[in-house]
């Protein structure tokens, strides 16, 4: 909720979205494009087949600087930051004292005792306060206010971007590069949130419109809004904070154990020593009662967030955390948090949608193959 004195914000590309005919909606305190005249389905498919351009400037961009920055950040995430190689990215999670998740983020090692974080728009103020209050004495924490973030995603993203910046050809998934585009210093990472190959470009706000126009001048590139961003990430089986991740569930309960670095786990060289480590290590060791899984609903009716999952006897087994329609596979798909015992005994499960019981099958994620460029 916004307080009265907080005005709804816009990104540096706001006028471009209006000019492109975008449908704007409030999202995390920003007026954001949910779709363009192409429509969510076509925007989604265009990203899978060619290239989509996303304005994700609402996301938080934070710099940590100082000789102790890496060590300090490690005290807040269950992830290996100290050994993160130069110009590499790692997915991380801010945990809380009880082992829950406060936000998920991308961390890039820029070298020279400098880390670059990208955090969720809806959490960025809380994240900044959290960083200040916990490690504010150990390193400099800089909230980058005057920067935009553009995501270029899809199988042709590499071709489109290399025409502008030839040196990105050598980049692989989860690496970063500092480049100059028309004399403007940018940070490019080969990463994204669609399951496709692609890049995110951090660029000074004042130069972002020119870059967006340059990218859009390529006929393969179309604007893609938040609506398709959500259906793309859902098909790719990627977690969304506030849905698959929240303060009440540990990363293990949210099926993100893969993100917990071995060196920070029990028996590792730098085990524990982050908020909630006891609970999380216990969950890794003892297992959990619930986990996050893919669901394939039977038929055509979408099963959406919040739908209760029951077994044949009407026992509540879990809840849908994200659900909708997968345009690439042309059927409804969902992600749910379910009690493990019912998954293990292969119970027949149903989603409750408006008094109807829709049969659902537990399936492995992702729904659509991830196409990252690993070299």
């Amino acid at each position, binding site marked *: 909720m916004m307080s009265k004195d907080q005005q709804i914000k816009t990104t540096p590309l706001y006028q471009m979205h209006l000019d492109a005919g975008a449908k704007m909606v409030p999202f995390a305190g920003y007026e954001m494009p949910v779709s363009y005249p192409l429509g*969510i*389905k*076509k925007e989604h498919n265009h990203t899978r087949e060619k290239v989509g351009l996303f304005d994700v400037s609402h996301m938080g961009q934070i710099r940590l600087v100082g000789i102790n920055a890496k060590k300090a950040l490690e005290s807040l995430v269950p992830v290996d930051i100290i050994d993160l190689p130069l110009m590499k990215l790692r997915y991380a999670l801010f945990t809380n004292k009880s082992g829950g998740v406060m936000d998920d983020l991308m961390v890039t090692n820029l070298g020279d005792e400098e880390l670059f974080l990208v955090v969720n728009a809806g959490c960025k103020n809380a994240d900044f306060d959290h960083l200040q209050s916990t490690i504010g004495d150990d390193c400099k924490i800089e909230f980058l206010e005057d920067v935009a973030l553009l995501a270029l995603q899809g199988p042709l993203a590499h071709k489109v971007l290399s025409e502008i910046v030839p040196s990105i050809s050598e980049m692989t998934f989860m690496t970063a590069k500092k480049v100059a585009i028309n004399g403007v210093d940018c940070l490019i990472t080969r990463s994204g949130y669609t399951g496709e190959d692609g890049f995110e470009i951090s660029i000074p706000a004042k130069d972002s419109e020119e870059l967006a126009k340059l990218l859009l001048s390529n006929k393969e590139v179309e604007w893609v809004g938040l*609506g398709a961003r959500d259906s793309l990430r859902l098909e790719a089986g990627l977690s969304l904070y506030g849905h698959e991740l929240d303060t009440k569930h540990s990363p293990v309960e949210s099926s993100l154990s893969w993100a917990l670095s071995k060196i920070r786990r029990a028996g590792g060289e730098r085990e524990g020593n982050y908020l909630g480590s006891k609970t999380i290590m216990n969950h890794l060791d003892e297992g959990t009662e619930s986990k996050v899984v893919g669901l394939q609903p039977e038929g*055509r*009716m979408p099963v959406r967030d919040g739908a209760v999952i029951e077994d044949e006897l009407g026992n509540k087994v879990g809840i849908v955390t994200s659900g*909708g329609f997968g*345009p690439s596979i042309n059927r*409804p798909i969902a992600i749910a948090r379910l009690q493990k015992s019912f998954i293990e005994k292969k119970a027949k499960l149903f989603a409750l949608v*408006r008094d109807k019981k829709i049969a659902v099958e537990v399936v492995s994620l992702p729904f659509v193959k991830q196409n990252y460029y690993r070299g």
Partner: protein
Amino acid sequence: MSIKFSEDHEWIQSQGDDLVVIGITDFAQEQLGDLVYVELPEVGDECSRGENISVIESVKAASDLVAPVSGTIIEVNSRLENEPELVTEDSMGDGWFIKVRLSSPEELDDLMDESSYNVFIEE
């Protein structure tokens, strides 16, 4: 064969004998975006004005179709179950939703004509 419009962006076309065909307007389908599923009522169901009788699902969200009139549902456009895109492509034609036999034909008088509806959506 007059056509009327509701504030919930439905069109209601009279076919005589207290029969009407109901669908959603172009304005409504544009607002909803790409439709992926339409849940229709059962033939024989009674509906009363203001009641939710159908659910229209877009990629993004589910919306209700509110009965603009009261009566009995005598036919549904079952093609929409597998081809919800008909609503997007031809909202006033092949994308119709239901056919209703009116129980209170005077309710039609409370609906807007086309010019009033056009003013309504401009506002």
